[in-house]
Structures are given as structure tokens and as C-alpha cells.
């Protein structure tokens, strides 16, 4: 037959060529080892679910490799250096932690990758003009500003509380969220009785809660992660003076492990999270069973759905921009892929209706608040 | 002239008075022995002199200077050096290194000097090494210098300990049972050796010993302690005849046996 015209790559930052029989290579840079590993492993599981559900992409297998980023700057650098040396990688899902992203992103960006983070929340990463904002970076997780403000609004308007206390765990995520919350809450006219911090690996929070109780707040906001979050939820009920106080976390605690760890005390706990209303059905009926089938457990942390969405967004964008040759060879122009990613509109994800801003914030800006009415997961959506 | 004077030194451990009001004078260039039953407080006295223990009462003068309560390193700097009843060498260092550590007080290189190693440090190190080898030869350990101290046989460890003590160029050397675990012939060597220390190096020696052939042979003066008290003091002959000492310490047999040793040709 007639020989096909060899594809000429005109993309300013190059193309990835995937020969027939070769897989399309996606990488992850998540924290998958060490004390913070549940965060990253859960996200990676989310990606694997996406790959399993997708099957083949443009007739090619999808290959997932990756690196531990250790939830630290140095880990980010190691992972960034290693991955950016591999030209077959099309896109990276990661990082788990903002500190790693700040160091790894310049390397990824330089290598021409598309990077989608399921869990970075630090505002600077997508702030236009900020030195930490790099081309190719997107995220399906929330910018802290959105969620913290929403929580403040909910507390002030819906619950009508006047005095609030916050707790963070020393992570960038929690520290920023509670800071935004506190600012917003004060702006609305509320009082912050105390802003405490705890060690995420500690188990006894009764003393800190007792000390918080001394300021007699009506509301405690602790946008932290599952382990400490569930223990705080539980122990707050045991501290005199806090029995009636409203408790609220953020999407960092949106996990079945929270009722597992908190027991009956979880009833009444509020969580802010992206509005799952439209998609929760699919999450429960399709995603969770697949997850359980593949990994034998329920999700162990919270950003699996974000990672799933990140992967699916990438697949969709690849399908959109890839040039498929008659022999099955696929060319993926890198800049075009980036553009396609940034142009994502109304993508139906598990975490909402995703549309990306030009600087890469793709999360659904609608925040909802959920409440555990019983000890069963997931909680009920009650606001707005 | 007395090089070491102790005035009413008292040391207590809980209820036990290990030393009570000990008065002692060690004459310069003499060999002075302390004997006494086990637990009499001899080692405790050494520990008080060298600064390991601070006596509750009394004072200790060295060359007229009050050294009561000085820390051990300062006492050493003043010129007192010692050996231990249970050998305490730096086990994982070689023999030469043990001696070099002993020279610590009169070497000068500090942190900067050690790193930059100017010519005076190089010279100092070279001379120290020479002196160490000399000391090894002096105690009969030539050729053993690069062995780890812990691998030396017992007797050689004893001698190495003395060499290490000598390395600090002491004016007063305290020997705590230097011949323990030696057979009579080795003991004889040690006797000669101690004499040489005094005669050739001019070091004053304060000695704790249980072997009477050593004590009676070389001491100019003997102090006897019992239950922390000084019960007698005098020349070897006086002590041998002292009823109280015989009773508490020498025992009848040994006292008579002593004559035998004296009569032996080894004694001078």
C-alpha cells in the first residue's frame, strides 16, 4: 500500500512517539512510602482504577510508573529529576504535597510534561506570576482559599456560631486552610478563641482539646487528615465542655476510615468537600467496587477521586490532541496537550464538574458541606 | 621535704567512714607504701588524692599547694599520676597510643593546630612518638607498641599502665597493687623496676601492695591503714614487729614467712 507520510512534529516543545505495541507512559510522583504514604498510595490506587476502567487508550496499553516524593522538598527533587529524565513520559500525576511540587515542578515543566496534582492545595502553585507557578501544572484539588472561605461562611451563616477554634497538623494543607478560615471568619464578625496545632502522628489530643475548651468556642475547625482527624472527633466528645460544640473537617477527612476510627462520635461531624451531588452515584456504584476489587480495601485516604479525575482528564486530552498514524503509531504533541488540558471545560469527574483556569485550577469551585447523620459513610450533603 | 601531705582527710560513703582523719606525709624522692587489710581504705585514699573523690573533711597538699577537690585532669597537670587496681587501659587503642594519651598534658596542639599542622606540631608529634617508644623500651614492651592494649598479656598490661602514667612526667606516682597477679620472679622484676623509677627518674612513689616481699624490700616508710584509720607508721622493720599490724594484717604465718623471704638471695 501507499507509505504513510511520516508525521512531522511541529510542536514547540516536542512530541512523544508511541510505536505500535508500546504503551502510553504516564507517571506518578506521589508519597507512597513513609509516614505520609496513605495519602499517595490512595491517589495511586485512584489512578490505577482509572487505567483499569479505561482499558486501552488509542489502541495502546497505559503504563504507569512512578516515584515516591516523600511529601518533602528533597523527595520532590529526587522524583522530579528521575522522572524528567525519561522522555517517554507524557504526563505526571502528582505531587501529593505542595512542598514537593515547588521543587519538582520546574523540572517537570522543563521536560515538557503535563502535571496534574490530585492533592496540592497551596495557593501559590496556581497564582499567576508567582515563581512557583509553572507551565504545564494543573490540579484537581482545591485551592485552599475556596474551601476555607466556604467553611467560614457555613459556620457563620448556617450554624450561626460566633466563636470558633481551629487546629492544624503542621501540614501545608491544614495550616493554610485554617488560616484562611480564621481570616474569613473574623471578617464575618466572628471570634477565634484559639488556633492550635498538633502532631499528625500523635494519638492523645485530649489535653489540647481541654485547653481549647477553656476558651469555650462553639465550633472547632480542624481541616486535617484521617488519622488525627478521627481521633480528635472522638476525643472531643469526651472532653467536658465540648460535648455540644460543632466539629468540622475538610476534604482531608472525607474517608470511610474516619467513621471507622471515630466510632459513634462521628455523628454530627461536618466535612467540607467538593460538591459530589451529581456524581456521587457513579462514585458509589462504579468507582468504589472497582477500588475494592483491585486493592482489597476501601479507600484509605481521600484524594483517590481527585487522582482518578486527573488521570481521566489526561486521557481525554490525549485522545483529543494525539495524532494516530495508520500503523497505529501515536504522536502526542506536548504543548498541544498542555493547551488541551488548560482548555478543559465541564469535564464530568467524580469530584465535580471540572473546568480549568488558565493557571491550572481545575477543581469544581462549588463546595458543599456534608454531615454524618449516622456512622455510615458517606455523609449526607446538607449545604448549600 | 614532703611532696604530698594529707591533713585529717575523711571520706564517707553513706554510713561507712572509709577514711577517717588520715594524716600522711610523703617525702620527696622516697618510696612510701600504704598497706592494710582489704577494705581498709587504701584505694579510697588514692582516689581522694587524684581527684576522683572529694573528701568530706581535711585537705591534701601537693608541693605545698592545696589540691583538695581539684578535678582529676588538673591534678594530673600538677604532676600526679597513677595506675589502677583493676587495670584500666584504653583497651581498643594500641600500646603506643595509650602512652601518647598519657603525654596529653605536655603537648600543645589544639583543634586548629591539629588540622593545619604547622611545623611545631609536626615536631611535637615526632618527639612525642620518640618518647613513647623510649618509654616502651623502658618498661620492656619494645615491639609490642602496635598491639591493641586488650590483646596484651596481663603482666604487660600492668607495665603498659605504668608507662602511660610515666608519660605525663609525674613528680609523684601512685601505684595501686602493681604486682597483683604476678609470680615471685615477675614480682622481683617489678621491685627492681620501681627502684629504677625512683633512682633514675627521681619520681616519688606512693605504693599500695599486699605482697610483703615488695613492701618490705623497697619501702622507706610504711603506713598501715585499718578500717579507715591509720594504725601504724614506720620503717619496714618497725612495721613487721608491730603487734597491731601483725594482728590485723600480716598474720602470724606471714610475719614469720617474711623472714624467710628476707633471707632469700633475691633480697638485697
Amino acid at each position, binding site marked *: 500500500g501507499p507509505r504513510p507520510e511520516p508525521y512531522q512534529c511541529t510542536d514547540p516543545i516536542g512530541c512523544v512517539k508511541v510505536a505500535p505495541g508500546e504503551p502510553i507512559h504516564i507517571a506518578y510522583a506521589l508519597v507512597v512510602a513513609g509516614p505520609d504514604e496513605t495519602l499517595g498510595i490512595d491517589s495511586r490506587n485512584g489512578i490505577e482504577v482509572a487505567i483499569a476502567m479505561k482499558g486501552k487508550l488509542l489502541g495502546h496499553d497505559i503504563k504507569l510508573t512512578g516515584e515516591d516524593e516523600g511529601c518533602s522538598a528533597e523527595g520532590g527533587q529526587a522524583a522530579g529529576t528521575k522522572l524528567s529524565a525519561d522522555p517517554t513520559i507524557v504526563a505526571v500525576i502528582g505531587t501529593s504535597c505542595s512542598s514537593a511540587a515547588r521543587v519538582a515542578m520546574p523540572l517537570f515543566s522543563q521536560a515538557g510534561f503535563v502535571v496534574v496534582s490530585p492533592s496540592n492545595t497551596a495557593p501559590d502553585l496556581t497564582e499567576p506570576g508567582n515563581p512557583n507557578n509553572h507551565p504545564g501544572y494543573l490540579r484537581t484539588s482545591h485551592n485552599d482559599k475556596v474551601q476555607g472561605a466556604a467553611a467560614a461562611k457555613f459556620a457563620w451563616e448556617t450554624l450561626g456560631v460566633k466563636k470558633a477554634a481551629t487546629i492544624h497538623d503542621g501540614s501545608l494543607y491544614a495550616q493554610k486552610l485554617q488560616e484562611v478560615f480564621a481570616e474569613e471568619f473574623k471578617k464575618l464578625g466572628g471570634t477565634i478563641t484559639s488556633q492550635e496545632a498538633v502532631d499528625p502522628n500523635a494519638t*492523645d489530643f485530649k489535653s489540647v482539646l481541654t485547653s481549647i475548651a477553656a476558651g469555650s468556642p462553639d465550633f472547632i475547625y480542624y481541616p486535617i487528615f484521617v488519622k488525627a482527624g478521627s481521633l480528635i472527633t472522638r476525643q472531643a466528645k469526651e472532653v467536658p465542655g465540648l460535648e455540644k460544640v460543632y466539629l468540622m473537617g475538610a476534604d482531608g477527612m472525607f474517608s470511610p476510615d474516619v467513621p471507622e476510627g471515630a*466510632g459513634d462520635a462521628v455523628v454530627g461531624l461536618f466535612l467540607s468537600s467538593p460538591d459530589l451531588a451529581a456524581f456521587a452515584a457513579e462514585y458509589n456504584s462504579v468507582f468504589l467496587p472497582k477500588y475494592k476489587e483491585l486493592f482489597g480495601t476501601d479507600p484509605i485516604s481521600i484524594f483517590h477521586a481527585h487522582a482518578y479525575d486527573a488521570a481521566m482528564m489526561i486521557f481525554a486530552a490525549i485522545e483529543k490532541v494525539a495524532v494516530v498514524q495508520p500503523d497505529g503509531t501515536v504522536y502526542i504533541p506536548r504543548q498541544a496537550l498542555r493547551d488541551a488540558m488548560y482548555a478543559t471545560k465541564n469535564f464530568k469527574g467524580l469530584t465535580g464538574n471540572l473546568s480549568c483556569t488558565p493557571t491550572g485550577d481545575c477543581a469544581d469551585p462549588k463546595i458543599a458541606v456534608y454531615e454524618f447523620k449516622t456512622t455510615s459513610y458517606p455523609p449526607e450533603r446538607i449545604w448549600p | 621535704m614532703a611532696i604530698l601531705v594529707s591533713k585529717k582527710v575523711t571520706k564517707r560513703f553513706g554510713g561507712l567512714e572509709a577514711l577517717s582523719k588520715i594524716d600522711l606525709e610523703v617525702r620527696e624522692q622516697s618510696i612510701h607504701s600504704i598497706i592494710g587489710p582489704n577494705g581498709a581504705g587504701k584505694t579510697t585514699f588514692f582516689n581522694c588524692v587524684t581527684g576522683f573523690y572529694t573528701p568530706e573533711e581535711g585537705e591534701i597538699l601537693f608541693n605545698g599547694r592545696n589540691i583538695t577537690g581539684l578535678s582529676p585532669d588538673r591534678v594530673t597537670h600538677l604532676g600526679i599520676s597513677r595506675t589502677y587496681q583493676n587495670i584500666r587501659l584504653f583497651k581498643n587503642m594500641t600500646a603506643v597510643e595509650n602512652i601518647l594519651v598519657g603525654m596529653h598534658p605536655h603537648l600543645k596542639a589544639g583543634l586548629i593546630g591539629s588540622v593545619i599542622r604547622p611545623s611545631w606540631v609536626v615536631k611535637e608529634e615526632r618527639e612525642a612518638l620518640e618518647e613513647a617508644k623510649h618509654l616502651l623500651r623502658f618498661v620492656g614492651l619494645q615491639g609490642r607498641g602496635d598491639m591493641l592494649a586488650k590483646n596484651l598479656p596481663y603482666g604487660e598490661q600492668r607495665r603498659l599502665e605504668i608507662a602511660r602514667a610515666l608519660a605525663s612526667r609525674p613528680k609523684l606516682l601512685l601505684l595501686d597493687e602493681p604486682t597483683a597477679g604476678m609470680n615471685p620472679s615477675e614480682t622481683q622484676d617489678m621491685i627492681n623496676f620501681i627502684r629504677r623509677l625512683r633512682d633514675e627518674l627521681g619520681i616519688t612513689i606512693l605504693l599500695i601492695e599486699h605482697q610483703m616481699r615488695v613492701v618490705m624490700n623497697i619501702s622507706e616508710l610504711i603506713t598501715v591503714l585499718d578500717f579507715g584509720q591509720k594504725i601504724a607508721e614506720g620503717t619496714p622493720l618497725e612495721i613487721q614487729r608491730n603487734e597491731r599490724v601483725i594482728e590485723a594484717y600480716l598474720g602470724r604465718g606471714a610475719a614469720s614467712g617474711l623472714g624467710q623471704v628476707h633471707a632469700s638471695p633475691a633480697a638485697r
Partner: protein
Amino acid sequence: MLRMWRQRVTLTDLVIWGLGILILVGVVWGSIQTLRLGKYTLAIWYDLIITGLALGGVYALIALGYTLVYGILRMINFAHSEIFMSGAFTATFAADALYQAGWWNSYPVLSLLIVLLVAATVSATIAFSVERIAYRPLRYAPRLVPLITAIGTSFFLQYTFRGLYGSGQKGYPDMDIFQGAIVFGDVRILKTQLVAIVGAVIMMVILFSIVQYTKIGKAMRSVSEDKETAALMGIDVDRIISTTFLLGGISAGVAGILFLILFPVAHFFMGFVPGLKAFTSAVLGGIGNVPGAFLGGVLLGLLESVGPSLFLDGLGIPAPYQLKDAIAFTILVFILIFRPTGILGERMAQTKL
């Protein structure tokens, strides 16, 4: 007398004492400020103290394991925290099974015994094997070498359990008999807390009696000092050491259960922080000393619980509980300055010369 004192006291002593006094002044000043502010009512102080005691009880229990092993091998068994974790983690599965079967609240005592048995067996077995594989071959190696194998073992155990059970957390079912609180006037103590404190005391007394008064205990102390000579007495050194590890393992298992009663979640990393704290407690009390471990644990628990509120709050330091470990360690330094071998440590540092 005065002159003697002057000769003995060096510049460094002065600096160290100065440091001690500085810490003391900081602590006292902070406390005064806090108390003057009056933010905390008496009831709150009681609460903090009780919380501290319960937490301290758990620390103390884990610390006992450290101290036992230290006492005999003069080594810090870094893997002990993982032995604690293994018992606790396994217990959650047993407890869950019992809960599913409906026994948990209908036969609470029996269930508790079963869970205790499971936890103690698992942790004792692991403790025993760890000694056999990672420590015994190194019995005559330099002191720091087994420390490193202990660290290696610790990683290995952590990640083995992670691999086996997954890295999520596992809840431990509440038991009805431990629900609720006992109130004496202003003092309110949760039953779970009471169980932790009493459990720790009982365990401490048992272990202390074993070490101090039984033949095995004396053999343990002999072995600790001089293995060769102990063997010359007819003591089977290997067996005594294994026994010690078994005891340590059992106490870790019990600690695991008490821990779960207080903080009912288990995960593979749960051993690390309590382990570190317990190790600190053991040292604080005088490592190698059983009552010392207990005292150290309780003191540390109290410091962590009461310290930040008492010392820092009044000084206007934000988020004082973030610094609770810093306080604990500062006080530790303070105590060790004046008692270099811990509160109840042997004053035998003066070895015979």
C-alpha cells in the same frame, strides 16, 4: 569548706546550673502568668492531669519493655515500638471478629481475655524471634551494632505489617463496660482512663516483683552484668535473654490493648510516636529500672498534657500544644542535668577505680 567548693566548681558547672535556673525560671514565670490569667478553671486542670496520667500509664507500659531489655542487654531495643504495634494491630482483628460474633459486649471479660491473649502471643512471639534473628548473633559485637539492627528490624516490622494489613487504619470496637466516667466532685475520670492507669500499675508491680525477687529475675540481673560469669553460675544465658524478650513482648501486648482502649485505632505507624515517648520515659526514670520506667512514663504524660497550658499559655505563645514535646524534652534535659542517670537511675556511675 567554701574554698573546697570553689575549687570543685568549674565554669561549666556554673553555665550548666545557669541553664538549669533559666529553665526553672521560665517554667515558674510561665506558670505564674498562666495562673494569673485564670483562663483555666480547676476542673480543667484536673482534666488535664487525668489525661496526662492515663497517657503516662500507656507510656509507662511500653517503657517497661524498653527497660527490661535494656536492663539485660544494655541496648536500646528500638524495635520494641513495633512489637507494641504488632500486638495492638493484630488485636484489632481479633476484637473485630469477636464484635461481629456478638461476644464483645455480651461476654466482655472473656473477649478481653481472648484479645489480650492474641495480642500478647503475637508480640511475644515477634519479640522472641527478633532477638533470635537480629540480636543474638551480635551478642559480642560493639554496642552500637545491635542498635542498628534494631532500627532495621523496626523498619522491617512496620512495613511488613503495612504490607499484610494495608496502610489504612483499623478501628477497635468500644466495649460497653468501659463507657462513661466516674466523677468525684470536680474530678472526672473516664473509665477507659482508669483502666489504663490501673493496668499500668499492675503490670509494673508484676514485672518489678519478677525482676527483684524471683530467681529468674536475679538471673536476669546477673546476665545483664556479666554473661560469662553468669554462665559459670549455671545460668542458661540464652534462655534468660529469651525470657526477658518474652516478658517485654507480653508487656508490649498488654500495652497495645490498653492503648487501644484509650485510642481505639490501629495502623502500622502507630508504634513510632508512643515508642519514642516510652523510650524517653525509660531514660527519664533511669533506664534499666522498672519503677523508674513507670515514674518516667507518668511524668512525661503529665508534662505533655499539662505542660503547654501551664508553662506556655501565659507567655502568649500561639499553639502551645505544638510544642508539647519540646517542653517534655526541655524538662528532661533539666532533670538529667541534676540527675545524670535519671530519676531513679543507679547512682553507680561512680565505678570502682
